[in-house]
């Protein structure tokens, strides 16, 4: 079944890329979910759309701009958007949770205006939104591989600090961990992973790959390490099965991957109900 991906170059690159996404997205997703930032992932991915739309518009009016891969503009916008969220959270002292919907919807709205100025309601945009198997070139693949290595290295290096920050932020700050700098690094990492993943799964579906495997893994894992293990396992499973199914059914790969994630989550939750298992107490320790 899978061997078809090795017959064609472009399929091979997307397949390798998606294997890396299947590891990266759930890895970052674990920290995102445990830090209660699951909604932030959705917001950042929607703002990535604004960035991509911006570079589509610029490329139309200033051809020099076309040399820059829209994905990088998207990442930049995502980081800027997350800084604006922090700012808004301070402005709405009593309604902090308003910051996310405001930025999310403002991001898409502005994005749509950019797109319509670029006359960009085309197939390209559809691929950005929902992903495409054929979107990865050899150069893209090299960039993805380098970024994957860098992100994994950073996560490994700062594992302890991130872990500490996730479970007991106050204690972490007191013991001298530079929480703000670490948070910023984490945001940049998230933006990069979104940028990488969106080429295959699409902007609207990136956050699914970050939250759904983790949500399923949480019901099974008995420790933080196991949480990573199961999340990555589910992530990879969904990516491989999703890509294969999408290729044979001629369907959108992103959609297929998410649907398989939903099936895994559904299976885990119904097994829970069958075995009368409760939520694991490990995850309440914050």
């Amino acid at each position, binding site marked *: 079944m899978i061997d078809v991906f090795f017959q064609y170059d472009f399929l091979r690159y997307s397949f390798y890329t998606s294997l890396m996404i299947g590891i990266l997205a759930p890895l970052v997703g674990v920290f995102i979910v445990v830090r209660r930032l699951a909604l932030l992932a959705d917001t950042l991915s929607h703002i990535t759309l604004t960035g991509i739309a911006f570079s589509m518009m610029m490329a139309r009016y200033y051809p020099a701009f076309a040399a820059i891969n829209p994905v990088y503009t998207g990442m930049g916008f995502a980081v800027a958007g997350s800084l604006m969220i922090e700012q808004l959270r301070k402005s709405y002292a009593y309604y902090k949770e308003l910051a996310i*919907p405001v930025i999310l*919807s*403002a991001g898409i709205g502005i994005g*749509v205006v950019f797109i319509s100025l670029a006359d960009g309601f085309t197939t390209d945009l559809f691929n950005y939104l929902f992903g495409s198997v054929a979107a990865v070139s050899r150069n893209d693949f090299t960039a993805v591989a380098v970024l994957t290595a860098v992100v994994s290295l950073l996560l490994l290096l700062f594992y302890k600090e991130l872990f500490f920050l996730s479970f007991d932020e106050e204690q972490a700050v007191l013991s001298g961990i530079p929480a703000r700098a670490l948070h910023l690094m984490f945001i940049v990492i998230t933006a990069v992973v979104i940028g990488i993943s969106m080429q295959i799964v699409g902007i609207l579906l990136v*956050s699914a790959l970050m939250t759904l495997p983790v949500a399923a893994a949480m019901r099974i894992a008995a420790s933080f390490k196991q949480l990573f293990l199961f999340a990555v396992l589910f992530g990879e499973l969904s990516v491989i099965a999703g890509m294969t199914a999408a290729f044979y059914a001629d369907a959108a790969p992103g959609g297929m991957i998410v649907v398989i994630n939903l099936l895994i989550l559904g299976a885990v939750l119904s097994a829970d109900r069958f075995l009368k298992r409760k939520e694991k107490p490990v995850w309440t320790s914050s």
Partner: protein
Amino acid sequence: MDIILNLSFLERGIAAGLLIGFISPVIGAFLLVRRMTIISEGLSHVTLTGITAGVLVTQVAPWFNPLYAGFLFSLGGSLLIEKLRQVYRHFEELAIPIILSGGVGVSALLISLADTGYTEWYAYLFGSIITVTTADLGFIFLTGAAALIVILLFYKELVSISFDPEFASSSGIGVKKINFLFSVLTALVISMSMKVVGILLVGALIALPTAAAILFAKSFRQVLILGILFGEAAVVGGITASYYLNIATGGAIVVMGVLLLAAAFFVKKLQNLWNRSERKEHAA
């Protein structure tokens, strides 16, 4: 009914926009005090799933209006969110991202299976004022009127539950029933708005006017009134801008909402500065 039938496509769009600009901020105000504004994003993405499923149905049964499927899915989504909140008791905030991303995932799959042109999907995603048909306007009018009547009838209960659920239940209000009613209302408003502003932008009309109103309002009633004012201003300004600049209506409406919010922040800041200098004068 004759009046509705005789409207031109542009007038239909404007009428639909005005209705939506009125009702969305009202729902937004209730969602705000319940601290659930983000639910509108989750539900709008599920509505997309319903719409795509509906479009698949229309390929077999052409008389079917996908908006109804959108409404049903949105209602189902809001019930599922409640359920997931109970399942993930320690991570309640996971419920919305799960529903949101799951909803888009299924719709992406259905879209790729439906074999319909891109243009139609863009109209659903980002809204298009010129595709509002007479039937759509009827749907928007009926749902808008129904939502408004329900809110007026249950205003006291809704306010009481939103601000103090414990007190509400002890004073004999059926919290569960009213909560369900509110879910239906939210689903209704989202599915009626999506034709004009588009799925991805529905949340904006619920969140942005309310976010601007809360900066000035001194009471809940003022949040409602100011929210409606900001909402209508965003719709009117957005439609006008989109007509003259030839840009997507949904986007223009939202950008107008963003500009209004930014202006509101600016005015608020000036107000604060003014108050501070006045206080200093008093002190001196």
